[in-house]
């Protein structure tokens, strides 16, 4: 136990010394901002569950069954998330962290190093699920007017569930690491996780849950509800956690305590098994983790490092363009993200293809074009999310090799422009495809087609430049995973500013576009006032977009100078 305390000490001391750091003020500001956003999200979760449970209570006969099934599904989701989260966290903590060389050089048995690291990963991999799971259980407690014992049992059961999920995750990782280098496991797990998520989302979407409100489907719903009464397998830990929480909620404290103890005993058994397995297998796996991870693309041999010619670019710019493209495609962790985006694009387009526009009392042509206008903003939001993942970390991805950029005869502003252009081309293409294809699916007027394609053409450069510029203004060169920099203060700031920019463009265009559109729908000739209004609003949009490109890139270059 003393060894564990010593091994945990650097982390605790680093946390304590955080306030002495040069970046302490930034960190405090970040903490406040994240707390605020987290609190809003927390309230939102509580609100949604409270409302849903209130609604269920009003459904005679089925209400409690629905609430119980929702609880079981929530616990199952939490448990799956926890296992996946712990696999990723444990991999990083026990095989891939930079400080492991130092830790393994200490006179401490590998089993204890494992325990210390696993202990950290239990906390790191669980806190978010626990924090955002709390409003769900609170909503149940409030709606069902639960006793204090419900909260105590839930807390114990959730803690045991986190420990058990972490135990399963660690066992999987340690066993796999004997056969595969940890770097490859991480790639495989991330790709697998993303694919599973995609399949899940696609299946849910194709099932079209919105049809459940259609009376024609009621028979199958009744059948569904009957099937929902089925109890989960008694061998699954999620069933024990569900029985514990549900028992405490309905006043069956004996059953609740028994199931909590059952989950706890599994967690402790897993801890013991993990320690025993890790004592034997951890160090061989760690040694194997030192090998270079598999790459998806072997480097080209022909042409001695030359890239397919892009002769129209000056050489220093070409050097960075080629480097950006090569490093991006050779980083296999980027691939899972690309699959995810492709899947989301398919779902996005599918959603528009199944909109029941013809079944609404509102005029179809009006609705089609309204959706087209809203779709511009929606597509730009999607681009923001993609840019946050790929463009925002673009400067941080230089990492410890940033000195090469600083020492090179290329100005930082030029570097940011290069990064901006490299990412602009695919993102502009993606957003235009989203907007044009959805417009075709909606069957909009040529005017709306031209307007939305044109607006996107000007808006996407702004969204991308803001990502690159703010990513440069808030870089993180020391991060082991720069792609995560989007969850930083700068990343959040970018998301908020980009959303504000998109909203502003929509607001500037909305009035004149609506006026002109309604005139043409009524079959009238637009007046010169309407044409002038639209011209002025489009000119303002162009100015806004130009500012959104130039200002963030300039700010980013200036901030980088001081790094």
């Amino acid at each position, binding site marked *: 136990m003393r060894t564990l305390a010593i091994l945990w000490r650097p982390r605790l001391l680093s946390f304590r010394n955080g306030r002495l750091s*040069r970046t302490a003020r930034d960190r405090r500001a970040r903490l406040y901002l994240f707390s605020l956003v987290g609190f809003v999200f927390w309230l939102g979760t509580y609100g949604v569950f409270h409302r849903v449970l209130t609604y269920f209570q009003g459904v005679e006969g089925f209400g409690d069954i629905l609430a119980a099934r929702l609880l079981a599904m929530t616990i199952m989701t939490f448990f799956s998330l926890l296992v996946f989260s712990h696999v990723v966290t444990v991999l990083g903590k026990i095989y891939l962290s930079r400080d492991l060389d130092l830790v393994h050089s200490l006179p401490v048995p590998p089993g204890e190093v494992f325990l210390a690291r696993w202990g950290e990963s239990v906390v790191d991999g669980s806190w978010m699920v626990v924090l955002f799971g709390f409003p769900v259980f609170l909503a149940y407690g409030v709606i069902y007017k639960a006793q204090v014992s419900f909260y105590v049992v839930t807390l114990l059961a959730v803690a045991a569930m986190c420990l058990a999920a972490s135990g399963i995750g660690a066992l999987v990782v340690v066993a796999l690491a004997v056969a595969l280098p940890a770097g490859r496991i991480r790639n495989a797990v991330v790709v697998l996780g993303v694919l599973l998520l995609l399949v899940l989302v696609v299946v849910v979407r194709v099932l079209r849950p919105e049809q459940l409100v259609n009376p024609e489907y009621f028979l199958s719903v009744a059948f569904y509800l009957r099937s929902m009464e089925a109890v989960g397998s008694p061998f699954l830990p999620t069933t024990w956690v569900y029985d514990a929480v549900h028992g405490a909620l309905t006043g069956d404290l004996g059953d609740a305590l028994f199931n909590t103890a059952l989950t706890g005993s599994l967690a402790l058994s897993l801890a013991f098994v993990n320690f025993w397995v890790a004592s034997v297998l951890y160090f061989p796996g760690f040694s194997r983790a030192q090998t*270079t991870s598999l*790459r998806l693309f072997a*480097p080209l*041999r022909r042409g*001695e*490092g*030359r890239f397919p010619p892009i002769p129209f670019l000056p*050489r*220093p710019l*070409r*050097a*960075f363009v*080629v*480097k950006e493209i*090569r*490093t991006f495609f*050779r*980083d296999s962790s980027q691939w899972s993200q690309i699959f995810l985006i492709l899947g989301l694009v398919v779902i996005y387009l599918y959603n528009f293809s199944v909109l029941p526009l013809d079944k609404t009392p509102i005029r179809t042509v009006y609705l089609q074009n309204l959706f087209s206008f809203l779709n511009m903003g929606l597509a730009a939001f999607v681009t923001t999310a993609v840019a946050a993942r790929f463009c925002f970390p673009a400067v941080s991805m230089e*990492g*410890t*090799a940033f*000195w*090469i950029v*600083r*020492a*090179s*005869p*290329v*100005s930082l502003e030029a570097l940011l422009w290069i990064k901006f252009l490299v990412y602009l081309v695919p993102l502009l293409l993606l957003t235009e495809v989203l907007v044009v294809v959805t417009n075709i699916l909606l069957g909009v007027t040529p005017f709306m087609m031209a307007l939305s394609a044109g607006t996107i053409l000007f808006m996407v450069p702004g969204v991308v430049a803001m990502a690159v510029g703010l990513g440069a203004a808030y870089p993180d060169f020391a991060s082991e995973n720069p792609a995560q920099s989007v969850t930083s203060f700068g990343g959040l700031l970018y998301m908020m500013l980009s959303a504000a920019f998109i909203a502003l463009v929509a607001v500037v265009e909305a009035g004149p576009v609506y006026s002109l559109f309604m005139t043409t729908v009524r079959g009238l000739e637009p007046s010169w006032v309407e044409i002038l209004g639209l011209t002025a609003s489009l000119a303002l949009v162009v100015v806004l977009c130009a500012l959104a490109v130039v200002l963030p890139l300039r700010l980013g270059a200036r901030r980088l*100078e*001081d790094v």
Partner: protein
Amino acid sequence: MIVLKELTKRYDRVLAVDRLSLRLEAGEIFGFIGPNGAGKTTTIRMLGGVLKPTAGAIEIGGVSLLERPVEAKRMIGFIPDRPYLYEKLTGMEFMTFTADLYGVDGDVEGKAMGLLERFDLLNRRHELIEAYSHGMRQRLIIAAALLHDPAAIVVDEPMVGLDPTAVKMVKDIFRDLARRGKTIFMSTHTLSVAEDICDRIGIIHGGSLIALGTVGDLRRSAGVGEGDLEEVFMRLTEEETR
């Protein structure tokens, strides 16, 4: 060739480099030595254009590094102490990347291959840098820094991580470059290397230059007679600490 005027760097309340002034001529090898935390790496990083000074000026071949950084950096070959590189590029790709960056003319591949061969990396040139050892990375950085035939070479701890053969090779290359009129500004802890190849040596302590001259000049100012550079270094820095 390299001129530093009142160069100063302050990190919050810590004064890392204090009004450092120096003038290095073409063809000179200058050794910059000092205890840990004396300000060597900070100076080198400012000289390489990687760090912005708080005050003062740097000129490379008569061009201000602060006012015309792009032009000045074209004349510098910068070799940092830690060989951080783009892990997902191969050695050869890094060389061509550097050639494009610095606008190297003529037979780029030939030049790159020649340097890679000289630094014993030719057979590994198509492997990703992530698979290179520390010494190989260091050799690759030095090779890339020489690719554009810079007029000034700014190098921080050039011998760290190199095997004895590579150390000898680097020393020979530096001597050869100096003979061809290139200026080398080198910080090092390896006093024997400084004594061996440097024309002049500067000792920095607490951010200030406390001694400057040839090894003979330094011996005289430290009053150590025939003592080696290590003895001179110890004497001068101890005096300053007192």
